Structures are given as structure tokens and as C-alpha cells.
């Protein structure tokens, strides 16, 4: 579904991604592990088209998309749950969800919104509340719900557990597992490597802008480099 080949990207003259290659097949959950500043978020931003690419290819369902504007990539079926939620803070929960379906030009979103509320009942109670006034966990749920409203083929999840209390982290990972069971393709960026690899089919480790290890989740869990660097074994 997604194939990235020899991708380079940077901020000004500082290169943040060096020769990154990675692929995600339909129905897979792929984890991308790495420390702060390793380039995880930059890679997701490049896939979504909000970060310029200097060279290399991004293919989505066999179409080259690395020069395509961000809004057209959403139309193709790539949705991102960005780091730090990035909600439309002054707009209501319901409006945030409606805007998530912006590219679908659907006239009636009632059923879709009901589907999101079924997944996150607490959001239903707060449907008229401004998104900026939600708690961190609720904001994360809304960010996930907003991305799902576009009926994406691929979801890019950036650090969904960041800054949340442990009980909420479990809840968010349950949702990711639930999405996986429904067949949703996900590229999951996480610092919580153990939780991410428990859900993922495969994983990659990114270090200072380079993919250093890649393989099945079970293989990665057993890999001594992953164990010492990211699992604290």
C-alpha cells in the first residue's frame, strides 16, 4: 500500500531523513520506533505532504505522491493523527469530526459521527464542547476520531500515548488494537516500544534519520539492539 524508497528530507540545510526506505502492506500495523529527534515525526509529515522531500520516492497504491499537495493525499486515503493532537481548539467536538470528513463531500455524516461516538462514548457527551477544553485523553480520542472520519485507507498515528496517564494509554492502545481487528492499515509511531510491538505485525527502528533495524514484531522484540535501546532490557 505504502512504499517509501530512498527518501531524503530536511529542515533548511539540516537533513533529518537520510535514505529512508520502508513499506506498509494493506491490513498491516507497522510500528516505527525511535528516540526523540530520530526523525519519526518528520517521516510522517513527509508522507502527509506537510514536510518537503528533497529526493526519493513515496508511492501510495502505486502512485507517486511525494510532490502532491497535502490535501490531495487525504483524498487518496492517507489520514494522520498528528503529534500533539492539533485539534481545531475553538471549534466543537462535532465540528472537528465533520471537518475530518472534509474530503468526502458527504451530505450526511450522522451515521459516521455516531460510529465515532460508539467508539468513544465520552465524546458524545461533549459533542458541543470546544475541542480545546477537552482533557488530554479526550483530545487524543477526538484526534483519532477526526482522522477516521475521512474513511482512510492508511492511518498515520503519531505518538498517541504521549503525555497521557497510564490508564488512558491502555485505552488508546485498545482502540488501536480494535482498529487493527477491523482491518485498518496503520503506521504507528511510538516511544512506548513494548506496547507498540505488542500490537504491530512488523516494525522499524529509526536512528538519527536512518532506518537501522526492520522486521517482524517478534523478531524485533528479541533483537538485542532493540532490547537494549528501546525496551530497557
Amino acid at each position: 500500500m505504502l512504499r517509501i524508497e530512498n527518501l531524503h528530507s530536511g529542515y533548511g540545510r539540516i537533513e533529518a531523513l537520510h535514505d529512508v526506505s520502508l513499506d506498509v502492506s494493506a491490513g498491516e500495523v507497522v510500528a516505527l520506533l525511535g528516540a526523540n529527534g530520530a526523525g519519526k515525526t518528520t517521516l510522517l509529515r513527509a508522507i502527509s505532504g506537510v514536510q518537503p522531500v528533497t529526493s526519493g520516492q513515496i508511492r501510495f497504491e502505486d502512485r507517486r505522491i511525494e510532490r502532491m499537495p497535502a490535501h490531495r493525499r487525504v483524498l487518496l486515503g492517507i489520514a494522520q493523527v498528528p503529534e500533539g493532537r492539533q485539534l481545531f481548539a475553538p471549534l466543537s467536538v462535532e465540528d472537528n469530526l465533520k471537518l475530518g470528513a472534509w474530503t468526502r463531500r458527504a451530505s450526511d455524516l450522522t451515521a459516521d459521527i455516531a460510529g465515532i461516538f460508539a467508539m468513544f462514548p465520552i465524546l458524545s457527551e461533549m459533542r458541543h464542547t470546544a475541542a480545546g477544553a477537552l482533557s488530554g485523553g479526550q483530545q487524543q480520542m477526538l484526534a483519532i476520531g477526526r482522522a477516521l472520519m475521512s474513511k482512510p485507507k492508511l492511518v498515520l498515528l503519531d505518538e498517541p500515548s504521549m503525555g497521557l496517564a497510564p490508564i488512558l494509554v491502555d485505552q488508546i492502545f485498545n482502540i488501536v488494537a480494535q482498529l487493527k481487528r477491523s482491518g485498518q492499515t496503520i503506521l504507528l509511531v511510538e516511544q512506548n516500544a513494548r506496547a507498540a510491538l505488542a500490537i504491530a505485525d512488523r516494525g522499524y527502528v529509526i536512528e538519527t534519520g536512518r532506518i537501522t533495524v526492520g522486521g517482524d514484531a517478534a523478531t524485533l522484540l528479541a533483537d538485542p539492539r532493540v532490547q537494549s535501546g528501546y525496551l530497557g532490557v
Partner: protein
Amino acid sequence: MAELLQFAFSGLTVGAVYALVALGFTLIYNASDVINFAQGEFVMLGGLVTVFLLAAGLPLPVAALLAVVASTLVGLALYRFAIEPARGANAVTLIMITIGASIFLRGAAQVIFDKRYHSLPPLFGDTPIRFGGAAILPQSLVVLAGALVIVVLLWAFVDRTLFGKAVLATAANKLAARLVGIDTRLTVGFSFAISAAIGAIAGILVTPITLTSYNIGTLLALKGFAAAMLGGIGSAVGAVLGGLLLGLLEALSAGYLSSEFKDAVAFIVILAVLFVRPQGLLGRARVERV
């Protein structure tokens, strides 16, 4: 009492125009973080284009409509050819660009039209209406009603349509807007177009009272900016409130102190806001939890 009423009415009339200019500032500022000092030029264009099309033999409604369309196109061109190419530049650079655009538009208007003052026929004649001892021009009521209609329409558009919400979303978080698939060039461009149209309509409505000329834009932009700051920059309700308040303050100080002070009021207001309440009367409430 009659005197006070008289001053209040002329203040509210001018204030409605300031309010519309301030609303234009707010729309563009929210969508793109640009303080558009060419905002007053839209008011000038609306009035002058109508005057010259009317002189060319077109009926007033057609001339007015074409003037709004022309100003809207100028607003779009300002975004497309001056602001968009400079995206990512810092605030001061962007302000410089809009000041440059303002000087350019003023110069162009001086060449295309002329340097004289022009008026338009008032919509309902110029026999003043007597009210509580004060004389009110019918056109004053037209200006106030026009401003009210624009504010209500704008509110309905933003609150009731998904495109309006996409414009709000772009203003709230541009990165997120791009990530949900909103073409932000479209929504920001739209904000420039709407601001220009609002400015032009204000210009057409007020020309029968205040007259228009190629150079009225500069002072209007500064006063609209003062109004936006007074109301709290970024707040649409604040912009309208700030505009009306500034108009009243001007009219009252011109009436009770001296008309020489009239234009100074806006600048005193800017200073007072900066010293006393930098976020303005209705400065953007921070409801964001991080």
C-alpha cells in the same frame, strides 16, 4: 441631549465603516497572520469604481456590484501575487508587503481615476430625518443597516456552513487543516476575497456621506486597525465593537472638544490599548489545554 444624540449618530455611522474595516483586518489576520494595511484601499476602490462606472452610464446597482467584484479580484490578486509567494516570512516583512500594496493601489487609483473628491447619490435622498431633536441622514441608516446585514451574513456563513467552518479551522490550526485535506490556499484566498468585498461595500455605502478619493484608504486602514486592536485583534465581535466605539469617541471628541482632535483619537486609542489592555476588550480567550 439633542446634541449628544446628533454626535452619537454621526459617530455610529462612521463607526460602522471602521467596524467593517476592522472586520476585514480580523478575517485576514485570523486566516493568515497578516495585518493587511491595504484594507483601507478596498474601501477606496469600492467607492471610486462605483463613481466612475456610474459616470460611464451604468445603473447604480450594476456599478456597485461590479465595484465589489473588482475589489474582490484585487483582494485575491493581493493574496496570490504578494502574500502567498512570501509565505513563511516574518510578520514585519508581511506588513511591509501590505503597505507596499497599499501605496501601489493608491498610485494606480490616482492614475486610472483622478485626484478629486467624488460623491454618490444617497439611496433614499438627503432630507434629514428628525429624531429627538437630532437630524439623521437617511444614508446613515443605510450604512448601519448594511453593516448589520454583513455581520449577520458573515456569522451565518461561518457558523452554519462547512466551508465557513473550514475557514475557521484554517485560522485555528493551519497544519491540522492541511492534514484533514483542506486546501488552505483556497480558504486563505477566500478570506482575502471576503475582506475585500466587505471593504468595498463599506466604501460604496459611506461615499454619499463622507465622499471618496484615491487617498482615503491610509487613514481608514489605521483607524480600522485601531478599532481591531481596541476590540481585541482576532476577535470578530471585538472588531465590530471596537469600530463602533472608535466612531463614537471620534464624534464625541470632535463635538465637545475640537474637531482638530478627531483624527488623533484613533492613535490615542492604540496607545491606551497597548498600555492598559494589550489583548483588547475581547482579546482571544485562551481555552486551549496543553
